[in-house]
């Protein structure tokens, strides 16, 4: 198709501002899918995404639309909605020339939107703002339009006011896309350069690369190369997404489509890589590529040791469509055989956890997440560790360095005080504060990554009544006085409860952990001491008093079945506990390390 008739766009929005609904509407309107075929929020295919109100995996769809007598091809590229996936968002935006900015008419521009918007502006995208949800009683479309005008310089009166849900004025969005977003450019005769903006594993076709061709073309199914990994691809087919895969065996500069790469695992192809021809290909890849790097690590164990095999199978399957997930086997004295997992961030970890439980029906235990520390040893060597268990003895360590990140928080200005309080509590330092308008502010600060991976986002949301959002990027390693805090139950250290903490926080966290354990660990037949220790030094202690009696002094008459079932239930409950030093520790104990800050 003539490049002038192609538009490549993304939709960017704060969570719940109606991105998916608008996408659905556009697809219906262009006849891409009929109402009958339309599942609710087609682009968010996984239940989990729907529930969390975010899109985890990007996908793309080609829509055909006639406007003023000409036929246009609009490629809509979906973007994931969370900070953990900012790299994927950036690659998706890189594949576009324009972005539709959806703003909720009742809520106005939200901080989360800003992060994506800035990313879009950085990629030089043309922004098409749209005010959505004008059907809501609380809608203030004119006020919001003025906000948007102030932000983008687009005249307020030119901004479409729509309701994607009730199908009001959505056509105007299509018109603006065609009129405002520039068509793609690119030399169709240059050597092929196609950006991989997403990957997906298809059980029948293997790894599917979603690509935007910037230069050159693919005719048929020639041998291709992924420029970073050097992997040679022998494609099964090449085509476009309608959204079903339609084989064209032809993609040219400016177009968006897919390549069934013939690769067997997602690990063979990275998002952000450039695909070129194996023979006579380009020499320089497109900008923006970064290898995926896990930033957060946690142990994962089956609740029931018998489920180890199932857990391993589930992880293998999960990795098929989650290239960012890495894992290796790990063992714990308390929890038995399990895995150490690496995630892009805490949110990514939550998603993996929920998917394992929901899609694979597994009962699992996650241990406290950790970041990757650099440990400078007395012998001059440097170790990197991502698990408290791996931290060497204090005498062998000269210093420990931990990753810091730049954290940007967008929030209504009335919450500045409480946000700064939170940041300071988590060892953060304010860098600067920028007023976005009279009501909103951007707070930039430096903060140790370890401080934001455990319950920071929830706390931020709670403190700002859900209005603040955040984005972070890894910055540098800094020296830190970190120590390993051990929890001993009945004199036995419980490895899965150890955490690496800053020495200044050790006392407070030790106390909290001990009192949490005291609440959670059921009373046993004997008194159980619970201690927090740094090395050999006990810093906190509490006792779980011995159970005085556990006998059913009740008359059950001849109903022996009931009595037996009561006892069996008690036994079944115990099976889900972990034995350490003759003490049954409920699984909840291992998760409670994640919620230390809650009152």
């Amino acid at each position, binding site marked *: 198709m003539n490049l002038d008739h192609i538009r490549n766009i993304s939709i960017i929005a704060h969570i719940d501002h109606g991105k998916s609904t608008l996408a659905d509407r556009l697809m219906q309107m262009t006849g891409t899918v009929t109402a009958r075929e339309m599942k609710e929020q087609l682009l968010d295919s996984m239940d989990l995404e729907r529930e969390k109100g975010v899109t985890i995996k990007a996908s793309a769809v080609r829509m055909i639309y006639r406007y003023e007598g000409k036929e246009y091809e609009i490629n809509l590229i979906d973007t994931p909605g969370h900070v953990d996936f900012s790299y994927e968002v950036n690659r998706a935006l890189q594949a576009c020339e324009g972005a539709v900015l959806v703003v909720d008419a009742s809520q106005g521009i939200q901080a989360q939107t800003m992060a994506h918007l800035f990313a879009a502006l950085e990629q030089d995208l043309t922004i098409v703002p749209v005010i959505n949800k004008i059907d809501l009683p609380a809608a203030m479309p004119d006020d919001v339009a003025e906000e948007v005008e102030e932000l983008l310089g687009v005249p307020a009166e030119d901004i479409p006011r729509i309701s994607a849900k009730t199908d009001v004025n959505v056509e105007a969005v299509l018109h603006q896309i065609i009129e405002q977003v520039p068509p793609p450019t690119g030399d169709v005769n240059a050597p092929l350069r196609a950006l991989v903006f997403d990957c997906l594993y298809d059980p029948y076709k293997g790894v599917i690369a979603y690509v935007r061709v910037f230069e050159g073309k693919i005719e048929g199914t020639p041998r291709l190369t992924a420029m970073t990994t050097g992997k040679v691809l022998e494609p099964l087919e090449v085509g476009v997404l309608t959204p079903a895969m339609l084989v064209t065996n032809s993609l040219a500069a400016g177009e968006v489509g897919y390549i069934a790469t013939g690769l067997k695992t997602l690990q063979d192809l990275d998002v952000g890589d450039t695909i070129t021809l194996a023979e006579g290909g380009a020499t320089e890849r497109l900008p923006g590529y970064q290898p995926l790097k896990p930033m957060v690590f946690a142990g994962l164990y089956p609740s029931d040791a018998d489920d180890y095999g199932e857990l391993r199978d589930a992880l293998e399957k999960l990795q098929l469509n989650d290239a960012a997930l890495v894992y290796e086997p790990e063992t714990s004295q308390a929890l038995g055989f399990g895995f150490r997992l690496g995630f892009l961030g805490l949110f990514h970890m939550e998603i993996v956890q929920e998917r394992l439980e929901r899609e694979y029906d597994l009962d699992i235990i996650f241990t406290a997440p950790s970041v990757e520390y650099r440990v400078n040893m007395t012998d001059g060597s440097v170790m990197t560790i991502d698990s408290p268990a791996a931290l060497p003895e204090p005498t062998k360590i000269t210093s420990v360095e931990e990753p810091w990140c730049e954290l940007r928080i967008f929030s209504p200005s009335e919450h500045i005080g409480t946000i700064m309080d939170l940041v300071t509590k988590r060892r953060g330092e304010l860098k600067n504060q920028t007023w976005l308008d009279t009501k909103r502010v951007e707070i930039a600060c430096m903060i140790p990554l370890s401080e934001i991976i455990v319950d920071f986002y929830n706390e931020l949301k709670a403190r700002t009544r859900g209005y603040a959002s955040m984005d972070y990027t890894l910055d540098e390693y800094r020296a830190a006085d970190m120590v390993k805090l051990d929890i001993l139950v009945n004199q036995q250290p419980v490895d899965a409860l150890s955490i690496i903490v800053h020495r200044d926080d050790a006392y407070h966290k030790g106390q909290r952990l001990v009192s949490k354990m005291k609440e959670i660990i059921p009373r046993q037949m004997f008194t159980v001491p619970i201690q927090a220790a740094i090395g050999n030094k006990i810093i906190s202690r509490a006792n779980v008093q011995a159970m*005085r*009696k556990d006998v*059913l*002094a009740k008359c059950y008459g001849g109903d*022996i079945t009931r009595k037996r079932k009561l006892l069996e239930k008690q036994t079944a409950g115990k099976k889900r506990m972990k034995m350490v030093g003759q003490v049954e520790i409920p699984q909840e104990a291992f998760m409670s390390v994640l919620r230390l800050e809650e009152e």
Partner: protein
Amino acid sequence: MDSIPSPVDPFGLYIHIPFCERKCPYCDFNTYAGLGDLFERTVDALCAEMAGRRSRLGDRPVTSVFVGGGTPTVLADAQLEQLMAAVHASFSLAAGCEITFEANPGTVDRDKFGCLRSLGVNRLSIGVQSFQPEELRFLGRIHDVEDVYRAFDAARTAGFGNINLDFIFGLPHQEMAQWQDTLGRALALGPEHLSLYSLIVEPNTPLYHWVATGKTDAPDEDMAGELYEATIERLAAAGYVHYEVSNWAKPGSTQPPDAVLMPEYACRHNLVYWRNQEYLGIGPGAHSHLRRRDEQGRAVSRRWSNHKPVPGYVRRVQQAEPVEDFAEEVGPRLSMGETMMLGLRLVREGVERERFQALHRCDMEEVFAAQLRDLQAWGMIETDAARVRTTRRGLLMGNQTAALFLPDEAVETDALEAGQH
């Protein structure tokens, strides 16, 4: 069903009277208030059910009869006579058969007890629950403290020489002094038997709802433990033998209290339960247990229970339909677990090795080697050539001890089709 044919084996008969003048808020038994219209038809149905069971049990002698509820004494004298006549018509009672009636101090007088005596009833179980007026109010009892004294006196006057008193301890905020006062008053009456149960908050009771909504505090488990231990001391000092978790009885005049394994006044009917022996339950919601031998000669239990709602029970009996609505087959291994679970409640007697061997045709020591070894190492049980029984500590941790003998996972017993027999 084939029962194990041995004329000397104990065999209990339980008859359930599902009526009360008022339903107590803690009670989750199958009993109802305000069903006066149904008394007659229910008694007819009980009699008919007994008649129907007769043919299947042959002439197996009944060694104990227990009429419980509910409040059997809410029935009229004529109804009680009809009931006992049916017992004699349908079953042969062994010589010296224990016949117990439960009674509520608020529903009895000298005449009622006289009637029971004339019907051959030789044991009474009176539901006193407390001697503290405010506790009786909390427990929703229809009687007051004076009623208890009147009832006990009437029972003695009527000639009852084997009387049990039921009490409940561990009420929310109950203090040691109150419980000791209740115990003191109970002991002063000199009953032959005392059943002392701790208050359990059972689902689907008003008490459960009160606790759930914060109207009442939950009973304090630690306090209940303290009260229980104090009770054990006090009753021992008063010469009662603690023979089951919740039951104490006087030894016979020739029994030395310290060495006795089973006091003379122990409730023989309840011993049938704890020794994992057989019994037939008659009436709505009543439970039964009969045993057969499988191909290898091992004991397999069949447990079942009757339909609970009274009108439905009556209708089924009237229309000669099966009244069971739950039945399970307990296989050999689980049945052995039940023998341990139940027998370890018998404080002195415990589980006798010989009895176990006779019942299950295998050696307890072989089947439960690991459990017995661990429990002994933890000081929960003591064993000798004749028996296994709990220590004081094991008694207090009875649930944990018993649970060890049950299979690891809650086994699904073979649910039998209801009504099949």
